[in-house]
């Protein structure tokens, strides 16, 4: 995964806001990369652009050598479904669904049958140690448990890249450590992991540490 001159400018108000100013980087396959930096300096914007959730004002994101700027909305959705898994700070589980259903939703847009979806969802819940909570609604789970479900959901389609936005940012230290252990486990599975974090412990373990300051890459 790499970027070339990635720029994002928001000009909805009269004053243009430069969230990212020409970021070029490369994250090799299977790398463990952390993005740090002060709040509001462009970390999440970079993560959203890497995950094709947003479009850059200038520059490009390349995934598996493919320039994502050349893909249409449908192709980008397919790319996200097949190659990228997301984990968010606030878990973002669908409240009306149970843990197992939240994982199945991620497979809904693919070709798996309901039976295969259920088998895969249960396997992933087992991996994050929550098989016994398969039929619990998010409101019945602790923050740490919800985040583990969202990690399982991110892995549902067996993506090669995992993008995480402050995955431990909303958890107590004990839950945070448990979530981190799962993140390391995922990395050991050979997946590329990119994490936006303020967690020093997590950042220290990174193979690639990127610091974003004022929309620019400070060091690599």
């Amino acid at each position, binding site marked *: 995964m790499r970027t070339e001159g990635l720029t994002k400018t928001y000009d909805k108000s009269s004053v243009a806001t430069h969230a990212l100013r020409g970021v070029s980087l490369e994250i090799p396959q299977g790398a463990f990369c952390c993005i740090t930096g002060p709040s509001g300096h462009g970390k999440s914007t970079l993560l*959203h652009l890497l995950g094709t959730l947003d479009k850059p004002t200038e520059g490009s994101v390349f995934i598996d050598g493919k320039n994502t700027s050349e893909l249409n*909305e*449908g192709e980008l*959705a397919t790319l996200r*479904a097949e190659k990228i898994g997301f984990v968010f700070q606030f878990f*973002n589980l*669908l409240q009306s669904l149970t843990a197992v259903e939240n994982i199945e939703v991620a497979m809904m847009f693919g070709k798996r049958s309901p039976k295969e979806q259920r088998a895969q969802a249960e396997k992933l819940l087992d991996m994050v140690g929550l098989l016994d909570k398969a039929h619990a609604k998010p409101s019945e789970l602790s923050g740490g448990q919800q985040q583990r479900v969202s990690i399982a959901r991110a892995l549902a389609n067996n993506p090669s890249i995992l993008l995480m936005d402050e995955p431990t940012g909303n958890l107590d230290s004990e839950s945070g450590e448990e979530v981190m252990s799962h993140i390391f486990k995922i990395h050991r599975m050979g997946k590329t992991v990119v994490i936006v974090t303020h967690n020093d412990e997590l950042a220290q373990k990174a193979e690639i540490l990127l610091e974003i300051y004022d929309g620019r890459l400070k060091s690599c």
Partner: protein
Amino acid sequence: MNILKLVIKNITRRRGRFIFTLLGITIGMAAFVALLSLGGNMRAEVTRQAHAMGASLIVTPKNWCAYDQISILTGNALPESLQLEVYEAVAAIEGITAVPYLTQKTAVQNNPVTVTGILPAEMKEFMSWEVAKGDYFSSVDERAIVLGYGIAERFELDLKDSIRIQGEEFPIKAILAQTGSNDDVSIFLPLAVVQEVFEVEGYISYIAAQVADLSKLEFYEAAIIEVANVSVTSDRQLLSAVLSMLGSVNMTLQLIAGVALIAAAFGIINTMMTAIYERRREIGILRAIGAKGSSIFKIFVLESGLYGLLGGLLGVVLGLAVSALVAPLIAESSFNDLLKGAQIEVSLDPGIIALSIIFALVISVASGLYPAWKASRLTPVEAISYE
């Protein structure tokens, strides 16, 4: 997991809103179905009454309006506007069999009822009446009553009873067998007696005529007009005039139901728009995990379509139930001239049912299109970043 399952889970999670939105479309549909069903039955009933009238031509004064013509069909009292000589002239035309009607109003147990003056023998033959109880008139000036079947039933009157008309007691001499026409809801007396009691000697209200050859209706019409300064209407013209009036009434009622449905449609739009604002984040999550804009569009259209399907089904059931409850009240209402004494029944017309459900579905899907389009246009990042 599939989209339909997700939609059902989403809808049922917000139970209160789900029920109230559903009620909106259900009530709109129920009003639509009830009015459509009642209207269809009214049409059928008027057609049946017209056929039971047994006349091909109706002779009326020249200045009568459409309302008067409807009254002929409903058996209501009409002004005494033709001279008896007109009847004699019409009856004398070869190939025409005619009977005069003199209709007046009286009350039985404080309910308005039509008194019809007839020529006993001619009328019995003309209408092929059969007597269920008692003996039919034996003379043209007998001071007694022959009662329609429906009146006897409704007011529980029998041969031993009498009815007071204009201060005079008239014994009930006979009760007619059921005819299915307005004859069932009238009191019959000899023409001469009605003319005397209501002080309209020498007058009748209108004339009903049968012709020997139905293919020459126009010829007979011309023949009648030649002998008297009157207006002649065929039963078909009368029926189509009444049906067109009924059509206008039905159209108005259905428009009202349509307004209720449009209000329900806006209810759906409102619910869906609120759902989109509330579920922005959810849309963002779905987009992030690979949902295309078209999938989001499908989810929201399906959601509003489900309201239509459920609302349509419930509305049809409720509408038919309401019309079943209301139909007898309409038939009994003394204000409703058109259906007085009619046997209105609620018919389970599969066409109306299917059409109503499809209509509800189309309206709700159409209501969901704009919100669904708005939802599908949200970029993943603006949806996911929504707090």
